[in-house]
Protein backbone atom coordinates (compact mmCIF):
# COMPACT_ATOMS: atom_id res chain seq x y z
CA UNK A 1 0.00 0.00 0.00
CA UNK A 2 1.35 3.38 -1.04
CA UNK A 3 2.28 5.65 1.80
CA UNK A 4 0.73 9.09 1.99
CA UNK A 5 2.86 12.20 1.70
CA UNK A 6 2.46 12.83 5.42
CA UNK A 7 3.61 9.29 6.20
CA UNK A 8 6.58 9.67 3.87
CA UNK A 9 7.51 12.92 5.56
CA UNK A 10 7.21 11.33 9.00
CA UNK A 11 9.51 8.55 7.78
CA UNK A 12 11.99 11.19 6.60
CA UNK A 13 11.75 12.70 10.06
CA UNK A 14 12.59 9.28 11.50
CA UNK A 15 15.73 9.20 9.35
CA UNK A 16 14.55 7.35 6.24
CA UNK A 17 16.36 9.09 3.39
CA UNK A 18 14.65 6.88 0.80
CA UNK A 19 11.28 8.41 1.66
CA UNK A 20 12.66 11.84 0.85
CA UNK A 21 13.80 10.48 -2.50
CA UNK A 22 10.21 9.34 -3.17
CA UNK A 23 8.83 12.80 -2.33
CA UNK A 24 11.45 14.36 -4.57
CA UNK A 25 10.50 12.14 -7.52
CA UNK A 26 6.79 12.73 -6.97
CA UNK A 27 6.88 16.52 -6.74
CA UNK A 28 9.91 17.72 -8.68
CA UNK A 29 8.01 18.13 -11.98
CA UNK A 30 4.88 19.88 -10.56
CA UNK A 31 7.09 22.09 -8.43
CA UNK A 32 9.45 23.05 -11.26
CA UNK A 33 6.45 23.79 -13.51
CA UNK A 34 4.76 25.91 -10.87
CA UNK A 35 7.94 27.86 -10.25
CA UNK A 36 8.68 28.17 -13.97
CA UNK A 37 5.26 29.71 -14.53
CA UNK A 38 5.82 32.02 -11.58
CA UNK A 39 9.30 33.27 -12.47
CA UNK A 40 9.25 32.41 -16.21
CA UNK A 41 12.81 31.16 -16.24
CA UNK A 42 13.65 27.47 -16.30
CA UNK A 43 17.08 27.73 -14.66
CA UNK A 44 15.71 29.93 -11.88
CA UNK A 45 12.72 27.60 -11.47
CA UNK A 46 15.00 24.58 -10.97
CA UNK A 47 17.16 26.50 -8.55
CA UNK A 48 14.10 27.57 -6.56
CA UNK A 49 12.65 24.04 -6.63
CA UNK A 50 15.88 22.69 -5.17
CA UNK A 51 15.74 25.36 -2.50
CA UNK A 52 12.17 24.26 -1.66
CA UNK A 53 13.23 20.62 -1.29
CA UNK A 54 16.25 21.65 0.74
CA UNK A 55 14.06 23.63 3.14
CA UNK A 56 11.67 20.71 3.44
CA UNK A 57 14.63 18.44 4.23
CA UNK A 58 16.09 20.86 6.76
CA UNK A 59 12.73 21.19 8.52
CA UNK A 60 12.13 17.43 8.70
CA UNK A 61 12.77 17.22 12.44
CA UNK A 62 10.25 19.98 13.17
CA UNK A 63 7.63 18.62 10.74
CA UNK A 64 4.22 18.19 12.29
CA UNK A 65 1.39 16.91 10.08
CA UNK A 66 -1.00 19.77 10.92
CA UNK A 67 -1.71 20.43 7.23
CA UNK A 68 -1.36 18.57 3.95
CA UNK A 69 2.20 18.10 2.80
CA UNK A 70 1.48 19.82 -0.51
CA UNK A 71 0.05 22.87 1.29
CA UNK A 72 3.25 23.19 3.28
CA UNK A 73 5.51 22.60 0.28
CA UNK A 74 3.70 24.99 -2.06
CA UNK A 75 3.61 27.61 0.66
CA UNK A 76 7.39 27.49 0.80
CA UNK A 77 7.52 27.49 -3.02
CA UNK A 78 5.13 30.43 -3.34
CA UNK A 79 7.02 32.52 -0.80
CA UNK A 80 10.31 31.79 -2.53
CA UNK A 81 8.83 32.58 -5.94
CA UNK A 82 7.23 35.83 -4.78
CA UNK A 83 10.50 36.91 -3.14
CA UNK A 84 12.39 35.99 -6.28
CA UNK A 85 10.03 37.96 -8.51
CA UNK A 86 10.05 40.94 -6.16
CA UNK A 87 13.80 40.92 -5.76
CA UNK A 88 14.10 40.73 -9.52
CA UNK A 89 17.11 38.54 -9.05
CA UNK A 90 16.45 36.24 -11.91
CA UNK A 91 15.22 38.73 -14.46
CA UNK A 92 18.64 39.46 -15.88
CA UNK A 93 19.38 35.87 -16.72
CA UNK A 94 15.85 35.29 -17.95
CA UNK A 95 15.51 33.56 -21.29
CA UNK A 96 12.14 34.60 -22.49
CA UNK A 97 9.91 32.09 -24.15
CA UNK A 98 8.68 34.73 -26.60
CA UNK A 99 12.22 35.39 -27.84
CA UNK A 100 12.45 31.82 -29.06
CA UNK A 101 9.35 32.35 -31.17
CA UNK A 102 10.59 35.60 -32.67
CA UNK A 103 14.07 34.62 -33.77
CA UNK A 104 13.57 30.90 -34.14
CA UNK A 105 16.36 30.05 -31.71
CA UNK A 106 15.33 27.61 -29.07
CA UNK A 107 17.09 28.83 -25.93
CA UNK A 108 14.89 26.89 -23.53
CA UNK A 109 16.61 23.54 -23.08
CA UNK A 110 14.09 22.36 -20.50
CA UNK A 111 11.03 23.38 -22.52
CA UNK A 112 9.52 20.30 -24.09
CA UNK A 113 6.30 20.68 -26.01
CA UNK A 114 4.55 17.34 -26.24
CA UNK A 115 4.86 15.86 -29.70
CA UNK A 116 1.22 16.20 -30.72
CA UNK A 117 1.90 18.32 -33.78
CA UNK A 118 3.54 16.41 -36.58
CA UNK A 119 4.22 19.35 -38.86
CA UNK A 120 6.52 22.29 -38.28
CA UNK A 121 3.69 24.72 -38.97
CA UNK A 122 1.44 23.16 -36.34
CA UNK A 123 4.30 23.13 -33.90
CA UNK A 124 4.89 26.82 -34.45
CA UNK A 125 1.20 27.56 -33.91
CA UNK A 126 1.20 25.57 -30.66
CA UNK A 127 4.35 27.28 -29.52
CA UNK A 128 2.97 30.70 -30.36
CA UNK A 129 -0.22 29.88 -28.47
CA UNK A 130 1.77 28.74 -25.44
CA UNK A 131 3.83 31.91 -25.57
CA UNK A 132 0.72 34.10 -25.49
CA UNK A 133 -0.81 32.14 -22.62
CA UNK A 134 2.43 32.32 -20.63
CA UNK A 135 2.68 36.03 -21.30
CA UNK A 136 -0.90 36.60 -20.14
CA UNK A 137 -0.37 34.55 -16.97
CA UNK A 138 2.87 36.34 -16.23
CA UNK A 139 1.16 39.71 -16.68
CA UNK A 140 -1.18 38.92 -13.77
CA UNK A 141 -0.42 40.41 -10.35
CA UNK A 142 1.82 37.99 -8.42
CA UNK A 143 -0.82 36.76 -5.98
CA UNK A 144 -3.43 36.26 -8.72
CA UNK A 145 -0.83 34.38 -10.77
CA UNK A 146 -0.03 32.06 -7.86
CA UNK A 147 -3.74 31.51 -7.21
CA UNK A 148 -4.42 30.55 -10.85
CA UNK A 149 -1.43 28.21 -11.00
CA UNK A 150 -2.36 26.45 -7.78
CA UNK A 151 -6.06 26.24 -8.77
CA UNK A 152 -5.79 25.33 -12.43
CA UNK A 153 -2.53 23.41 -12.66
CA UNK A 154 -2.07 21.92 -9.19
CA UNK A 155 -5.84 21.45 -8.69
CA UNK A 156 -5.54 22.28 -5.02
CA UNK A 157 -8.59 22.78 -2.82
CA UNK A 158 -9.71 26.29 -1.97
CA UNK A 159 -8.81 25.95 1.70
CA UNK A 160 -5.35 24.72 0.73
CA UNK A 161 -4.71 27.60 -1.67
CA UNK A 162 -6.04 30.05 0.91
CA UNK A 163 -3.53 28.69 3.42
CA UNK A 164 -0.70 28.89 0.91
CA UNK A 165 -1.54 32.49 0.03
CA UNK A 166 -2.46 33.39 3.61
CA UNK A 167 -5.91 34.78 2.82
CA UNK A 168 -9.52 33.81 3.46
CA UNK A 169 -11.37 31.43 1.15
CA UNK A 170 -13.76 34.21 0.21
CA UNK A 171 -10.86 36.51 -0.70
CA UNK A 172 -9.31 33.68 -2.70
CA UNK A 173 -12.48 33.10 -4.74
CA UNK A 174 -12.67 36.79 -5.51
CA UNK A 175 -8.96 36.77 -6.43
CA UNK A 176 -9.47 33.83 -8.78
CA UNK A 177 -12.50 35.41 -10.42
CA UNK A 178 -10.57 38.63 -11.15
CA UNK A 179 -7.58 36.65 -12.45
CA UNK A 180 -9.68 34.53 -14.82
CA UNK A 181 -11.60 37.60 -15.91
CA UNK A 182 -8.32 39.29 -16.87
CA UNK A 183 -7.15 36.19 -18.72
CA UNK A 184 -10.53 35.91 -20.48
CA UNK A 185 -10.03 39.40 -21.87
CA UNK A 186 -6.34 38.98 -22.67
CA UNK A 187 -6.77 35.63 -24.39
CA UNK A 188 -10.06 36.52 -26.10
CA UNK A 189 -9.10 35.05 -29.56
CA UNK A 190 -8.56 31.58 -28.06
CA UNK A 191 -11.53 31.88 -25.73
CA UNK A 192 -13.98 32.98 -28.42
CA UNK A 193 -12.94 30.26 -30.85
CA UNK A 194 -13.24 27.57 -28.22
CA UNK A 195 -16.49 28.91 -26.77
CA UNK A 196 -18.17 28.94 -30.18
CA UNK A 197 -17.20 25.36 -30.99
Amino acid at each position, binding site marked *: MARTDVQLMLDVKAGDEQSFELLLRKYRTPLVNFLYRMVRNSAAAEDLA*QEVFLRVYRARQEYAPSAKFTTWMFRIATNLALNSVRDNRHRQMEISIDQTGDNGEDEQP*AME*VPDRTPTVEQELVARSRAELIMKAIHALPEKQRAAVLLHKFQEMDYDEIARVLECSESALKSLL*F*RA*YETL*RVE*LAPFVNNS*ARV
Partner: protein
Amino acid sequence: MFGTSEKDKNGGKPCAAMENKLVEYLDGRARPAERRAVEEHLAGCAACNTRAEEFRALWISLDDLPEIVPSREFDASMRARIAAEPARRSFWDWMPSPRFAFAITALVVLSVWLSSGPRVVQSPSEMNQAIQANKISTEKDFGMIQDLPELENYDVISKFDALSELPGPPTTSTEDLKKETR
Protein backbone atom coordinates in the same frame (compact mmCIF):
# COMPACT_ATOMS: atom_id res chain seq x y z
CA MET B 1 -4.43 43.06 -25.47
CA PHE B 2 -7.31 41.71 -27.49
CA GLY B 3 -10.24 43.41 -25.76
CA THR B 4 -13.44 41.79 -24.65
CA SER B 5 -14.78 39.11 -26.89
CA GLU B 6 -18.41 40.05 -26.56
CA LYS B 7 -20.16 43.12 -25.32
CA ASP B 8 -21.89 42.24 -22.08
CA LYS B 9 -25.35 43.57 -21.46
CA ASN B 10 -24.28 45.27 -18.23
CA GLY B 11 -21.32 47.02 -19.86
CA GLY B 12 -18.86 44.18 -19.27
CA LYS B 13 -19.11 44.34 -15.50
CA PRO B 14 -19.74 41.04 -13.76
CA CYS B 15 -22.74 40.62 -11.52
CA ALA B 16 -21.55 41.07 -7.95
CA ALA B 17 -23.30 37.91 -6.83
CA MET B 18 -21.23 35.82 -9.23
CA GLU B 19 -17.81 37.04 -8.17
CA ASN B 20 -17.35 34.53 -5.37
CA LYS B 21 -19.46 31.73 -6.86
CA LEU B 22 -18.83 31.34 -10.57
CA VAL B 23 -15.37 29.75 -10.43
CA GLU B 24 -16.44 27.33 -7.73
CA TYR B 25 -19.50 26.42 -9.78
CA LEU B 26 -17.53 25.87 -12.97
CA ASP B 27 -14.89 23.63 -11.39
CA GLY B 28 -17.62 21.49 -9.84
CA ARG B 29 -16.75 22.17 -6.21
CA ALA B 30 -19.82 24.26 -5.32
CA ARG B 31 -22.28 22.89 -2.79
CA PRO B 32 -25.67 21.80 -4.19
CA ALA B 33 -27.50 24.85 -2.85
CA GLU B 34 -24.92 27.25 -4.31
CA ARG B 35 -24.88 25.36 -7.59
CA ARG B 36 -28.64 25.72 -7.94
CA ALA B 37 -28.40 29.43 -7.12
CA VAL B 38 -25.76 29.98 -9.82
CA GLU B 39 -27.73 27.98 -12.37
CA GLU B 40 -30.81 30.09 -11.70
CA HIS B 41 -28.77 33.26 -12.12
CA LEU B 42 -27.14 32.08 -15.35
CA ALA B 43 -30.52 31.19 -16.80
CA GLY B 44 -31.65 34.78 -16.38
CA CYS B 45 -28.38 36.67 -17.05
CA ALA B 46 -26.94 36.47 -20.56
CA ALA B 47 -23.79 38.38 -19.59
CA CYS B 48 -22.87 35.95 -16.81
CA ASN B 49 -23.84 33.02 -18.98
CA THR B 50 -21.46 34.19 -21.70
CA ARG B 51 -18.77 34.75 -19.12
CA ALA B 52 -19.25 31.25 -17.74
CA GLU B 53 -18.89 29.77 -21.24
CA GLU B 54 -15.75 31.80 -21.88
CA PHE B 55 -14.26 30.77 -18.54
CA ARG B 56 -14.75 27.14 -19.55
CA ALA B 57 -13.08 27.84 -22.89
CA LEU B 58 -10.25 29.66 -21.15
CA TRP B 59 -9.54 26.68 -18.93
CA ILE B 60 -9.34 24.43 -21.98
CA SER B 61 -6.88 26.87 -23.53
CA LEU B 62 -4.76 26.89 -20.38
CA ASP B 63 -4.41 23.14 -20.72
CA ASP B 64 -2.42 23.79 -23.91
CA LEU B 65 0.37 25.24 -21.83
CA PRO B 66 3.23 22.76 -22.18
CA GLU B 67 4.83 21.18 -19.16
CA ILE B 68 8.51 21.55 -18.70
CA VAL B 69 10.62 18.62 -17.59
CA PRO B 70 13.33 19.14 -14.98
CA SER B 71 16.80 18.89 -16.49
CA ARG B 72 18.88 15.74 -16.12
CA GLU B 73 21.18 17.54 -13.71
CA PHE B 74 18.32 18.35 -11.35
CA ASP B 75 18.38 15.10 -9.36
CA ALA B 76 22.16 14.88 -9.18
CA SER B 77 22.42 18.49 -8.08
CA MET B 78 19.67 17.97 -5.53
CA ARG B 79 21.37 14.91 -4.08
CA ALA B 80 24.66 16.79 -3.86
CA ARG B 81 22.98 19.62 -1.97
CA ILE B 82 21.32 17.19 0.42
CA ALA B 83 24.63 15.37 0.97
CA ALA B 84 26.31 18.69 1.72
CA GLU B 85 23.85 19.33 4.51
CA PRO B 86 25.46 18.91 7.93
CA ALA B 87 24.37 15.68 9.60
CA ARG B 88 22.00 16.25 12.45
CA ARG B 89 23.61 15.46 15.84
CA SER B 90 21.91 12.83 17.92
CA PHE B 91 21.50 12.96 21.70
CA TRP B 92 24.60 10.78 22.22
CA ASP B 93 26.67 13.14 20.09
CA TRP B 94 26.07 15.83 22.66
CA MET B 95 27.60 13.62 25.39
CA PRO B 96 31.24 14.53 26.26
CA SER B 97 34.16 12.22 25.48
CA PRO B 98 35.02 9.59 28.18
CA ARG B 99 38.31 11.33 29.04
CA PHE B 100 36.59 14.71 29.46
CA ALA B 101 33.76 13.12 31.46
CA PHE B 102 36.30 11.41 33.76
CA ALA B 103 38.16 14.67 34.33
CA ILE B 104 34.94 16.55 35.16
CA THR B 105 33.80 13.76 37.51
CA ALA B 106 37.18 13.67 39.28
CA LEU B 107 37.07 17.45 39.74
CA VAL B 108 33.59 17.33 41.21
CA VAL B 109 34.51 14.47 43.60
CA LEU B 110 37.63 16.31 44.72
CA SER B 111 35.78 19.55 45.42
CA VAL B 112 33.08 17.68 47.36
CA TRP B 113 35.71 15.83 49.39
CA LEU B 114 37.57 19.01 50.26
CA SER B 115 34.46 20.87 51.26
CA SER B 116 33.25 17.99 53.45
CA GLY B 117 36.62 17.51 55.39
CA PRO B 118 36.79 17.18 59.27
CA ARG B 119 35.80 20.34 61.10
CA VAL B 120 36.78 21.38 64.72
CA VAL B 121 33.59 21.22 66.64
CA GLN B 122 33.77 23.31 69.86
CA SER B 123 31.60 22.88 72.91
CA PRO B 124 29.88 25.99 74.36
CA SER B 125 32.31 26.16 77.34
CA GLU B 126 35.32 26.03 74.99
CA MET B 127 33.82 28.75 72.90
CA ASN B 128 33.35 30.94 76.01
CA GLN B 129 36.99 30.43 76.99
CA ALA B 130 38.11 31.41 73.54
CA ILE B 131 35.98 34.55 73.66
CA GLN B 132 37.40 35.49 77.08
CA ALA B 133 40.98 34.98 75.91
CA ASN B 134 40.33 37.13 72.91
CA LYS B 135 38.80 39.81 75.15
CA ILE B 136 41.89 39.90 77.49
CA SER B 137 44.24 40.21 74.53
CA THR B 138 42.23 43.11 73.18
CA GLU B 139 42.31 44.89 76.56
CA LYS B 140 46.11 44.54 76.72
CA ASP B 141 46.51 46.03 73.29
CA PHE B 142 44.18 48.86 74.22
CA GLY B 143 46.25 49.50 77.43
CA MET B 144 49.38 49.96 75.33
CA ILE B 145 47.61 52.51 73.25
CA GLN B 146 46.53 54.33 76.43
CA ASP B 147 50.21 54.61 77.54
CA LEU B 148 51.27 56.06 74.22
CA PRO B 149 51.28 59.77 75.32
CA GLU B 150 53.64 58.81 78.16
CA LEU B 151 56.01 57.18 75.74
CA GLU B 152 55.97 60.23 73.49
CA ASN B 153 56.85 62.56 76.42
CA TYR B 154 60.56 63.56 76.04
CA ASP B 155 61.10 64.31 79.73
CA VAL B 156 59.96 60.86 80.75
CA ILE B 157 62.11 59.14 78.18
CA SER B 158 65.22 61.24 78.94
CA LYS B 159 64.99 60.45 82.65
CA PHE B 160 64.38 56.79 82.00
CA ASP B 161 67.18 54.90 83.76
CA ALA B 162 67.39 52.11 81.28
CA LEU B 163 68.25 54.58 78.51
CA SER B 164 71.10 56.21 80.51
CA GLU B 165 72.87 52.89 80.61
CA LEU B 166 73.10 52.73 76.85
CA PRO B 167 76.57 53.40 75.30
CA GLY B 168 77.08 56.90 73.81
CA PRO B 169 77.09 57.55 70.08
CA PRO B 170 80.37 56.68 68.28
CA THR B 171 82.70 59.69 67.72
CA THR B 172 84.63 59.92 64.46
CA SER B 173 87.44 62.40 63.86
CA THR B 174 87.75 64.47 60.66
CA GLU B 175 90.91 62.60 59.74
CA ASP B 176 89.11 59.30 59.83
CA LEU B 177 86.44 60.71 57.57
CA LYS B 178 89.03 61.90 55.06
CA LYS B 179 90.57 58.41 55.05
CA GLU B 180 87.21 56.89 54.33
CA THR B 181 86.49 59.21 51.45
CA ARG B 182 89.85 58.38 49.90
